[in-house]
């Protein structure tokens, strides 16, 4: 198995992964992006891209993603074809293997796997996929030139994709669960759709079944007010009813919420040190190209800081041969500020035999949490990379000195 080392490994080359790659590689980190298909993620399947700032009409999803990828590569990021098989986030080196047999060892990992279209599970839906049932307008629009289609969904994506489809089809019938005139889509998109002569509307209704022998022939529509069922002949059914995150490979490795989205904080930190999440796979309010890119930038900067902190901690605390006393303090704790001069005296009296490292727990919450430092001042003693003693809130200097001598005497 080929083993490759890098600083930051990014899983997924959608807008989140590519923005992270740009920021990480520009910070001079060795950056590898793993992508199982073509870079660009879901944006690849979106033709009209008119809400990414700086690009008005005329920019397409695929073109914008080509620019993202080129931009990341310009700073040295490497985009590699690969499908993740296993992950091991337990050690200092995060290990990711691919189905192609490569093994990556990274100091930090940014997961940006994105999401994929949600399916409805209707009778006929699975059987007729690629036979008239589609989740991708740009992929399949050409098949439906001058034909009639049905669109399920009424959010922004559904209505925008339906409008794109009207450039090809004879008619697009929107099946909407709401009362007449009400859509989940925003007002600007709704108003444009209502003016589109090729779009037809069926209100208060849901699709119950997709029928066809080999190819789609009709749908069964149920009016939820009257419970009346009607069969509507159609050549295609496009489904745009939201997405599901592609996070199965992360299950049991990082915390996910019940629908499978990765739980991460404002710094994109997941439940595991050194593992970050960016983009649509994360629990968040708005899933757009711009928010994915923003996540990517934050994750990359946070990962960079993490790598440097870990490197610093290793060099100062874990690697030295002589014992190290780490003084955890906080600028908000007067007691810890008052005690620091005494800590310095204890260290100075043992120069050459004991190193002193001061860590502000406010700035280094992760390190403090890892060693269970809840209160300050706490002095932790390390020898040979191991935590050997801990003194929590010592009452006086001699108490600390005694522990220091015990550690040195080892």
């Amino acid at each position: 198995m080929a083993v490759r080392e890098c600083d930051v490994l990014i899983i997924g080359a959608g807008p989140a992964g590519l923005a992270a790659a740009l920021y990480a590689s520009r910070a001079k980190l060795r950056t590898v992006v793993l992508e199982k298909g073509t870079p660009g993620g879901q944006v690849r399947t979106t033709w009209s891209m008119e809400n990414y700032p700086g690009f008005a009409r005329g920019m397409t999803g695929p073109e914008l993603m080509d620019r993202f990828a080129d931009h990341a590569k310009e700073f040295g990021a490497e985009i590699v074809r690969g499908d993740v098989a296993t992950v091991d986030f337990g050690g200092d080196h995060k290990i990711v293997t691919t189905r192609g047999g490569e093994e990556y060892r990274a100091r930090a990992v940014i997961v940006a796997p994105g999401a994929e279209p949600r399916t409805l599970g209707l009778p006929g839906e699975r059987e007729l996929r690629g036979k008239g049932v589609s989740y991708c307008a740009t992929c399949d629009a050409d098949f439906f030139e001058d034909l009639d289609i049905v669109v399920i969904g009424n959010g922004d994506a559904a209505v925008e994709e339906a409008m794109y489809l009207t450039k090809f089809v004879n008619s697009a019938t929107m099946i909407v669960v709401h009362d007449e005139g009400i859509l989940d889509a925003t007002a600007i998109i709704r108003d444009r759709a209502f003016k589109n002569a090729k779009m037809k509307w069926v209100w208060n209704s849901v699709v119950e079944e997709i029928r066809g022998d080999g190819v789609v022939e009709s749908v069964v529509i149920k009016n939820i007010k009257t419970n009346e069922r009607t069969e509507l002949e159609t050549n295609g059914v496009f489904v745009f009813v939201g997405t599901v995150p592609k996070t199965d490979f992360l299950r049991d490795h990082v915390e996910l919420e019940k629908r499978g989205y990765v739980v991460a904080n404002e710094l994109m930190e997941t439940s595991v040190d050194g593992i970050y999440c960016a983009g649509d796979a994360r629990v968040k309010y708005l899933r757009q190209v711009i928010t994915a890119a923003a996540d990517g930038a934050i994750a990359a900067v946070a990962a960079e800081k993490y790598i440097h902190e870990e490197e610093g901690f290793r060099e100062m605390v874990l690697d030295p041969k002589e014992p190290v006393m780490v003084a955890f303090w906080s600028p908000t704790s007067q007691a810890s500020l008052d005690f620091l001069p005494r800590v310095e005296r204890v260290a100075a009296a043992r120069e050459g035999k004991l190193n002193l490292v001061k860590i502000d727990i406010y700035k280094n919450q992760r390190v403090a949490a890892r060693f269970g430092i809840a209160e300050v001042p706490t002095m932790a003693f390390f020898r040979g990379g191991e935590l050997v003693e801990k003194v929590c809130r010592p009452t006086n200097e001699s108490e600390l000195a005694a522990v220091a001598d015990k550690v040195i005497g080892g």
Partner: protein
Amino acid sequence: MLEVNKENFEAEVLGAAGPVLVDFWSTKCDPCMALVPEVETLAAKYGDRVKFCKLNVLENRRLSIGQKVLGLPTIAMYKGGEKVAELTKDDATSANIEAMLKEHGR
């Protein structure tokens, strides 16, 4: 890979003596483009037993729909003038295509 179209589909695919694989694709289909190198690798491996063809659906829309292909990517296998197996959308992976070639490529 042999480019097939509405003119030669009958002779090259349906009239072929042995098994034939047809890669239905289009320039607008990104998953199809991503699959190209993988299908080519398989063509190098199984090309002696199976005839590998590609069909651009943009230029052969009626023919594609006639073959009941209304979504991309679709990789189908034909034998004796009939479609015997087919993989579409997410199912059209390198591993699945290879399994299909093993089963029907004799």
